[in-house]
């Protein structure tokens, strides 16, 4: 509960800062034709399909007479597939490609070529780390504040002190790495967390069996471990199942970022009492809105521009604090789920 409030407070503070700039709020011009592509990390993942739903909602509202495609690579071909699909979209002269980048900086040259050819590249969920070739990044939440939420959830579940470890996705996932770094900074800078000790960071590569084995590995390696923090929807479920299978839920709690529908049984039985997530429907909606306005020329994509993004209200382009030279639109907030609200959200 406490955490939810904190999340809201941070977003509100960000909103207040934004409104003091007194810039003119730009409105979208509906009914224009822009061909748009939403490109997830790969197909078949629930959260990306939710983003697709949000994007379709925005498309309808804006009355875009152009085309909209939701397409992505298959899981085993994610990075190379994304680069290939971005190239194809460029040759098709698509107006905007909205991408949740899973190819690190490898995709930057392709994105730069797309921009040169007139196809805008907007990232969401996971940015291009160097910011090269990217018009702007629609950030789900402030990456720094995720660090605080992660630290707070560990603090709650460990009872204020003890050892914990991080089970992440892949070692080169831009978003997870940024969140873990943010969490480390928070741990180091605030005396509240001085009794928490981060033992290790391991990677399950968003695979059930690897994440499951890594989670058990952590428990064996660190006998005093109290919390496994998994900032990935695959890792958190696998870790929770591993603790449940080994009857370790009383000793080791699991937390992180997860989907209510997948986490509900583990939250109710106490293996993962608390986890967080933001709305991917909203993220898809905002990404579409921003991209449409960028492609129709309403937005120039410059720092300080404010615009009205439909039901999401007034949004602002600002400098991305985590990536010098890059720009972002900050969505927020996230929801912290526990046994009080997880069942309703899982339906």
């Amino acid at each position: 509960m406490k955490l939810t409030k904190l999340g809201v407070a941070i977003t509100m503070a960000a909103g207040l800062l934004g409104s003091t700039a007194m810039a003119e709020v730009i409105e979208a011009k509906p009914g224009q034709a822009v061909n748009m592509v939403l490109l997830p990390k790969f197909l078949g993942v629930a959260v990306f399909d939710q983003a697709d739903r949000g994007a379709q909602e925005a498309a309808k509202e804006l009355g875009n007479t152009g085309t909209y495609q939701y397409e992505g690579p298959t899981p085993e071909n994610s990075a190379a597939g994304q680069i290939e699909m971005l190239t194809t979209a460029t040759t098709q002269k698509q107006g905007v490609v909205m991408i949740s980048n899973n190819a690190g900086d490898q995709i930057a040259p392709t994105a730069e070529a797309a921009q040169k050819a007139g196809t805008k590249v907007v990232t969401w969920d996971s940015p291009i780390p160097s910011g090269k070739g990217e018009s702007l990044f629609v950030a789900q939440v402030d990456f720094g504040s995720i660090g605080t939420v992660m630290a707070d959830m560990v603090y709650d579940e460990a009872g204020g002190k003890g050892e914990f470890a991080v089970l992440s996705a892949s070692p080169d996932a831009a978003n997870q790495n940024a969140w873990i770094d943010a969490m480390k900074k928070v741990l180091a800078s605030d005396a509240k967390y001085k009794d928490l000790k981060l033992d290790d960071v391991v990677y399950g590569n968003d695979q059930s069996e690897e994440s499951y084995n890594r989670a058990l590995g952590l428990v064996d390696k660190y006998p005093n471990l109290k919390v496994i923090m998994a900032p990935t929807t695959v890792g958190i479920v696998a870790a929770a199942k591993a603790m449940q299978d080994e009857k370790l839920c009383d000793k080791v709690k699991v937390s992180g970022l997860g989907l209510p529908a997948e986490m509900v049984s583990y939250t109710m039985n106490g293996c993962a009492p608390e986890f967080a997530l933001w709305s991917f429907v909203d993220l898809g909606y905002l990404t579409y809105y921003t991209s449409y306005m960028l492609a129709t020329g309403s937005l120039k994509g410059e720092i300080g521009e404010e615009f009205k993004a439909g039901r999401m209200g007034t949004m602002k382009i600002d400098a991305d604090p985590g990536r010098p030279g890059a720009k972002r639109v900050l969505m927020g907030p996230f929801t912290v789920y526990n046994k009080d609200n997880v069942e309703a959200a899982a339906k």
Partner: protein
Amino acid sequence: MMQIFGKIHPQTLRLIALFVALLATVLFFSTQIDSYLSPRMFTRITTSAAVILPIAVGQALVVMTRNIDLSIGSTVGVVAYLTGEFLAAHGDLSPLLVALLALGIGAAMGAVNGVLVAYGRVPSIIVTLGTLALYRSFLVQYSDAKTITTASLPQWLVDLPQVNAFSVLGLEVRVTVVLGLSAAVVMGLALTRLRAARRIYAVGSNPDAALMAGINAARVVFVAFVLSGALAGLSGLIFLAKFGNITVVAGLGFELKAVAAVVVGGVSILGGSGSMIGVVIGCVLVDTIDNSLTRWDLVSEFWRDALLGMLIMAAVTVDTFASRSLRRLGAQKGAQ
């Protein structure tokens, strides 16, 4: 007489060498990792190897016929998903029928490979690389981004990974481990006792001679692929029980783990030789190395995969050299 001696002896030696390698690995890590030689570690490694073992057994059968099955990772994923989906709607299905369902789906998928390779005469590496992508794409399309969750599965299946089959000397042997091992035992007995199964060796060691001996080589290859698919179905079922949460990435990359276990286990990539005992030890060895490296302080996360790769290469190299010099030894003896 000498020929038989030359043929059997290196095989047995190879198994002994492999077993010694496994012992050495365990002994080495027991000096490095606290409480390594514990019942808990035994459970960790056996249950983790049990998921891979059935597909390694299937892969071995295919490799023995001079082919390869790269599609099994996707087969595991599809079977886990479809079986999970079916159970979510029909939770009262008896465990035996559930197993038959999983094996059946897998066998059907293997049969597609088998037909194309055995009767279509398309090289297996091409066919199974194709179906690897095809089956995965099917899963992506079919799943519509919906996850199979533990909550939708019958309780007996979710509890299965924790159920003990029996205990020996304080070591718990879980039911999933027995399931995985039974695949190896059945196939191992068949390969040594059944004339029909021995045709797999015949086709692999010399297809022309097998043909002359009146063996229907195409049918043998077809059956090997069907078995590989069915065993992937068994892996898929164990995967479903163990992880509960099935998404489109289920089983991704398993084909490489299976190939590693098979090659380390001494099944010749050139076909015609190999044993199920070897595959079991190979599978356990690869899994022991993987599970031990994650608990070893000296190695960082980033070096783990590289080290595992190097160890596999070392195993294969040693194996190749050893069997070559043994063969030379055998040939010398034969000449005398």
